[in-house]
């Protein structure tokens, strides 16, 4: 009889250990992740775009300036304001493509200093078509957690999305 009791005790302890192990596994699997490590918040990225200053040098297309006047221009402002200007220029179809391209390059250089992946889309008005917007950075891949924030500059809305690589 004591032998049966011994076997029963071992079984009881084994079941108890099993339950405790399951508890530990559940504890770790249920613990929420501590944020999207390695990626900047979209709010912080938007604040950086709104406050950081950049200088853009560009050339006006031939025929748009009078004789004897310099074609090279330099403009300085916050990344967000220049992006808004570039979006408006692009939407109007004005013949100043270098300005848009240079602004995109300057913002791309700015975003490169941030950790994680950042995508910026500047859109004029409330249009949803792809024609009236300019983008900097790749679109987030499907299936990743994306953080988003927007900045309004005049009638231009700048969408900032961040995610972990």
């Amino acid at each position, binding site marked *: *009889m004591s032998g049966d*009791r011994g076997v029963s005790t071992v079984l009881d302890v084994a079941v108890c250990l099993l339950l*405790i192990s399951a508890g*530990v596994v559940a504890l770790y699997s249920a613990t*929420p992740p501590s944020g999207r490590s390695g990626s900047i918040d979209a709010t912080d990225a938007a604040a950086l775009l709104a406050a950081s200053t950049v200088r853009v040098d560009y050339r006006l297309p031939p025929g748009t300036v009078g004789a004897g006047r310099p074609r090279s221009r330099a403009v300085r402002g916050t990344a967000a304001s220049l992006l808004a200007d570039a979006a408006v220029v692009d939407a109007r179809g004005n013949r100043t493509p270098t300005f848009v391209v240079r602004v995109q390059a300057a913002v791309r250089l700015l975003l490169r200093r941030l950790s994680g992946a950042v995508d910026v889309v500047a859109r004029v008005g409330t249009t949803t078509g792809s024609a009236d917007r300019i983008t900097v950075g790749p679109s987030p891949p499907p299936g990743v957690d994306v953080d988003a924030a927007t900045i309004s500059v005049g009638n231009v809305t700048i969408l900032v999305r961040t995610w972990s690589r």
Partner: protein
Amino acid sequence: MPRWSVRRGQVEPLAALAAVFVLGVALGSYTLAYDAAIPGAPQRDPARPALKRVLTVLRPDGVVRPARLDRARDPIPDVFRANVSVRVGNTTWAVGPRPPTDADAATRTVPVRVAPGTVRPGHVEVQVWR
């Protein structure tokens, strides 16, 4: 036939002792696992709230001013020692004693005014220890 026995309820002493020992170890391990898995209490992660407080001093209008570093440690409780640094590219401004290697640290990317009218992305790091 007797319905009871003098040995009823008894277990081999060795098995009973082993069972108590194993269960004690298991419950102790669970306690350690719980302690490690559950997000820490604020006093175990002091750098994050300290960074939040430091930023209220450093950037009153959304842009960090390195010149305000002298007052950056004011909102950090006196029980902690702290080092606050602002880094933009290769330039670093810092205040506070040299932190030990096990100091709790928190970093955030923020706009920093490096000159009048010039704002660059930078990093504010707060390291706290007792």
